[in-house]
């Protein structure tokens, strides 16, 4: 294709599909690892923030205020170069990426969890207490399942943001989508073609993530709908039906 005397070599994308997809796989790997860790830390932060101990709550909310405001690019440079300068210890680029993302997104997940936990009706906890359940059991079996259902759509949106933020890790040399694109471009000088390919990869991934989180959401709804939960709860449903027939 030739436009204004510029030759677009779209075939480059197909020729380099393997390396581009490998870059995407790295982006997914880094972001999923960060997602899992920051979901755990985010929950701990949310509980700390809601703690009745003032000091604990202030530490958690300060963490959120600080790290929510730091861009991923700054965070990863700080972790990768700053840490090594300060302590003489070098993280791998993969580790630095995961740590940088986790630092930032724990703060976001803290806020998401806090809102979700507060949205669970007060009567739920009271019912659990009146039934003689321990606080921990109430949290695990009653509050968390309901809060998770509320939080899932926001977690999905955040995860798409995490994937996109991995693109900034090109600066420390993590071979993800953008770094692959930069490398290909320095050899072929086809920025329009190559960055279009990168954009398409991100958009397609965002679609898939959205699809997956919607499926999770559907399966967490009550009554659960969706094929997955149908399969997962079949045995339980059969058990209840057997009980109904036996007792009735």
């Amino acid at each position, binding site marked *: 294709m030739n436009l204004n005397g510029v030759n677009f070599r779209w075939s480059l994308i197909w020729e380099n599909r393997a390396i581009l997809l490998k870059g995407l796989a790295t982006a997914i790997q880094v972001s999923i690892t960060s997602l899992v860790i920051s979901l755990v830390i985010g929950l701990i932060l949310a509980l700390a923030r809601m703690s009745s101990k003032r000091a604990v709550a202030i530490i958690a909310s300060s963490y959120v205020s600080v790290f929510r405001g730091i861009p991923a690019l700054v965070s990863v440079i700080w972790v990768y170069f700053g840490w090594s300068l300060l302590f003489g210890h070098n993280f791998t680029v993969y580790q630095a990426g995961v740590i940088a993302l986790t630092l930032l997104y724990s703060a976001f997940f803290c806020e998401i969890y806090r809102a979700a936990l507060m949205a669970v009706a007060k009567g739920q906890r009271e019912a659990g207490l009146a039934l003689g359940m321990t606080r921990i059991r109430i949290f695990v079996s009653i509050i968390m399942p309901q809060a998770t259902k509320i939080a899932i759509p926001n977690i999905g949106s955040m995860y798409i943001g995490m994937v996109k933020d991995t693109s900034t890790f090109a600066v420390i040399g993590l071979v993800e989508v953008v770094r692959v694109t930069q490398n290909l471009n320095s050899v072929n000088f086809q920025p329009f073609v190559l960055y279009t390919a990168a954009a398409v990869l991100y958009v397609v991934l965002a679609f898939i993530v959205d699809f997956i989180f919607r499926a999770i959401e559907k399966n967490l709804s*009550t009554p659960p709908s969706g094929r997955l939960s149908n399969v997962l709860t079949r045995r339980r449903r059969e058990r209840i*039906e057997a009980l109904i027939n036996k007792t009735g």
Partner: protein
Amino acid sequence: MAMQSSDESNDSVLLELKGVHKSFGTREVLHGVDLVVKKGEHVVIFGPSGSGKSTMLRSINLLEEPDSGSIKILGTEYGPGVKGGPQVKRGKPLELRRYVGMVFQQFNLFPHLSALQNIALPLRATRKISLHDAEKRAASELESVGLLPWAASFPSQLSGGQQQRVAIARALSLDPKIMLFDEPTSALAPELVGEVLAVMRKLAQTGMTMVVVTHEMNFAREIGDLNVFMEDGYVVARGGRDFFDNSTNERAQQFIGSVL
């Protein structure tokens, strides 16, 4: 075992509240309430809204921790204790709640669990019992409130009346010694009130000790062995079966007249 046999006699005191005080901020909502409930007795608590009925009921199982006052169940004292009273060993709330079942105005079923699981989960959480046994017990409790066919249904698929019946079955599955009802029919559409009252009536007939906060005066008249009228955080009047017709308390009579 000696204690057991004294519990079996009809006149034995099951629950005793003494000097229960409770403030929210600077506003005192309970000004030292006393109440004695005998085994098998059906107590009705009524009065205008804001009179402290619910707070009093909720302090029985320590959902509201009183500022002072004592709750004595089956010989053990719970709560902070009466001001200046004797220091005795006090039981833990968790222990107290094993003896006390509660039904809420808003049902408070767990929306993410089916009717059967709503009953089986607390059973599993509070005693060593297999999943199979818990679900078997849950099914038989559902059957006794007429909801066995709805065992797999989620709260959102049930009517308010059905939800409240599940909530009653859930509380009963834990074999409470006493059942508390906090305006159990107030959130229900009028046509659904009857089915819940029918379950409560049946429960009363089995000899369950009950404390009921309600605005259903006809139901109160029907089951109330002890009727307690509260206003502004005080027990203003109390009386037995003839209370609704023969109470000499002017405020109570006024209130009964306005509700009936």
